[in-house]
């Protein structure tokens, strides 16, 4: 029955990939289509407001600069709101201004699509902040990721000097994808009992006669974009484990699909742009294969239960239910954990700190690879980065100049790809080592031994992958953790995006190389295997020593 639940959700996802992918392709292909009539007038109004008279294509550098400047302005406005929220409207609970280093961490976190929350939603931010900073940035960070992915795909599949117009892509991501989808999902969630109100906190009398404060607010609106934008920052500290955010197994499935369907449809979009849909399906199949490997690891580890608890005579028939919601059980908890770390959303419906060691390894592994569907847009870019690397390695083996989609892959592209690939483990492992070496880092570890290593490793991996979930036993709301994870989030977001836009800018100008019988094909089963191999060999081996010290050592100690 548990596996059947998972299979049904997987089947629905696969059925949605093609129609959603086709829609997304038409949004960005700039070919006239039916959606122009619905959204065109609204977009023209926005272009007029922002003074965008000519939507000319941009070189990669102008595109990257536009993206960077937009982010800087959003960060500045958001930081100000966090520091002044006490004086701003919609603050019925009188919540104070956010502390400086926490404001730095929070604004970086939401701008980079991470949503690593070192504060608790119900007590740390006002309604105005929830709407004007958190919800707004959930749209803008997701739209940015979409724009980057499409620009990269244009760069590797088209010819010319330009890779699109950032502002046009950014606006279209909002008007044609995120806003309409968020309205639909919000209304569905409201119909399924998720609250949406501006009323202040409720004070009620419990059955025992005590008084209790129940936080309410505009939850459904935040909940929809939280998942659609692979953001993950919850209205409540307990995130999607809270019954107001995720009241039933049905809302759980809706939340899983809403965070998964857009990243999963992007490989199909890539296939449409490449005018060879098999290219897209090869990438999708590689992502799905890796996902099923990690899902199996999490599901069966949790189903087996915790041997230490089982030895105490506790009924283990339900699996390891520590930290999980009874209404979801093992199947919907394991699937949620696998999807939230694959799509790097970071929303949680169970506490990852209480996953079994191998279950925790499954969630860690997906974030370390950062290519198993991945976050909004950037997951596809990361996977295509490995695809180019795979082609390059095969070219070296057969002594032939590597080509990808009809372009020669030269040292300049490989230099940029090497930087992007190596940056990820570097910004995870170096800060992890620093945290272990300093009192400031060690002081927050609440579990001695192997699990303490996992806690720190998870925090920086989640930050670097722009995921945002955590092993919440780590006492991370301190200046040390706020600043170091803030910097890791920024490096994890911007280094790979800038490097990959540069690759797109380099490839878009190259002449096409005609396909011959000797051309290495990238749309068949052989390349599917090579792609998975490249991800596992390069990505997984880099982290092997660290995960041996953390989750694997913990698993072996459990017996």
């Amino acid at each position, binding site marked *: 029955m548990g596996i059947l639940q998972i299979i049904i959700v997987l089947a629905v996802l696969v059925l949605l990939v093609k129609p959603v992918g086709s829609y997304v392709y038409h949004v960005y292909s700039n070919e006239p289509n039916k959606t122009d009539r619905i959204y065109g007038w609204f977009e023209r109004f926005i272009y007029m407001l922002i003074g965008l008279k000519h939507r000319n294509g941009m070189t990669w550098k102008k595109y990257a600069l536009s993206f*960077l400047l937009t982010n800087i302005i959003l960060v500045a406005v958001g930081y100000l709101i966090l520091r002044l929220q006490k004086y701003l409207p919609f603050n019925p609970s009188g919540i104070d201004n956010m502390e400086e280093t926490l404001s730095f961490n929070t604004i970086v976190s939401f701008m980079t699509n991470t949503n690593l929350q070192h504060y608790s939603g119900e007590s740390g931010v006002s309604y105005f902040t929830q709407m004007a900073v958190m919800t707004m940035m959930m749209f803008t960070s997701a739209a940015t990721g979409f724009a980057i992915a499409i620009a990269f795909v244009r760069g590797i599949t088209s010819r010319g000097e330009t890779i699109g117009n950032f502002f046009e892509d950014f606006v279209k991501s909002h008007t044609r994808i995120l806003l309409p989808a968020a309205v639909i999902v919000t209304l569905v969630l409201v119909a399924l009992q998720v609250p949406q109100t501006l009323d202040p906190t409720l004070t009620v009398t419990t059955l025992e006669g005590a008084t209790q404060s129940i936080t309410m607010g505009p939850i459904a609106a935040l909940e929809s974009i939280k998942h659609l934008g692979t953001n993950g920052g919850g209205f409540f500290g307990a995130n999607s484990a809270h019954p107001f955010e995720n009241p039933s197994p049905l809302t759980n499935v809706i939340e899983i699909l809403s965070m998964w369907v857009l990243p999963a449809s992007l490989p199909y979009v890539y296939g449409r742009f490449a005018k060879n849909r098999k290219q897209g399906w090869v990438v999708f199949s590689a992502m799905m294969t890796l996902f099923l490997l990690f899902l199996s690891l999490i599901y069966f580890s949790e189903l087996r239960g915790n041997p230490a608890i089982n030895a105490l005579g506790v009924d283990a028939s339900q699996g390891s239910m520590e930290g999980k919601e009874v209404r979801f059980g093992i199947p919907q908890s394991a699937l949620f954990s696998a999807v939230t770390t694959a799509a790097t959303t970071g929303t949680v419906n169970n506490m990852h700190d209480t996953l079994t060691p191998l279950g925790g390894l499954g969630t860690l592994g997906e974030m370390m690879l950062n290519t198993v569907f991945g976050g909004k847009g950037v997951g596809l870019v990361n996977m295509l980065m490995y695809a180019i690397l795979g082609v390059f390695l095969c070219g070296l083996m057969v002594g032939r100049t590597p080509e990808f989609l009809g372009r*020669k892959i030269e*040292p*300049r592209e490989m230099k*940029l790809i090497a930087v992007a690939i190596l940056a990820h483990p570097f910004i995870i492992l170096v800060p992890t080592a620093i945290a272990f070496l300093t009192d400031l880092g060690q002081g927050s570890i609440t579990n001695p031994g192997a699990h303490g290593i996992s806690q720190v490793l998870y925090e920086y991996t989640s930050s670097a992958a722009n995921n945002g979930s955590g092993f919440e036993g780590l006492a991370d709301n301190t200046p040390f953790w706020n600043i170091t994870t803030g910097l890791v989030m*920024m490096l994890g977001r911007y*280094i790979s995006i*800038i*490097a990959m836009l*540069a690759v797109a800018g380099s490839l878009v100008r190259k002449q096409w190389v005609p396909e011959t019988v000797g051309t290495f094909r990238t749309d068949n089963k052989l390349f599917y295997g090579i792609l998975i191999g490249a991800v596992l060999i390069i990505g997984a081996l880099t982290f092997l020593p660290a995960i041996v010290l953390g989750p694997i050592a913990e698993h072996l100690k459990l017996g």
Partner: protein
Amino acid sequence: MLDLYMVLLLAVTFAVFYGFMAWCDRVVEDTGGDRK
């Protein structure tokens, strides 16, 4: 005062990204290989 440090940290980090962008541009424009 801490606000100033945080804003400075953000400014320096974004400046580093701009520098990285310039380095990427140099790599892309590198004439070591042909443009074919």
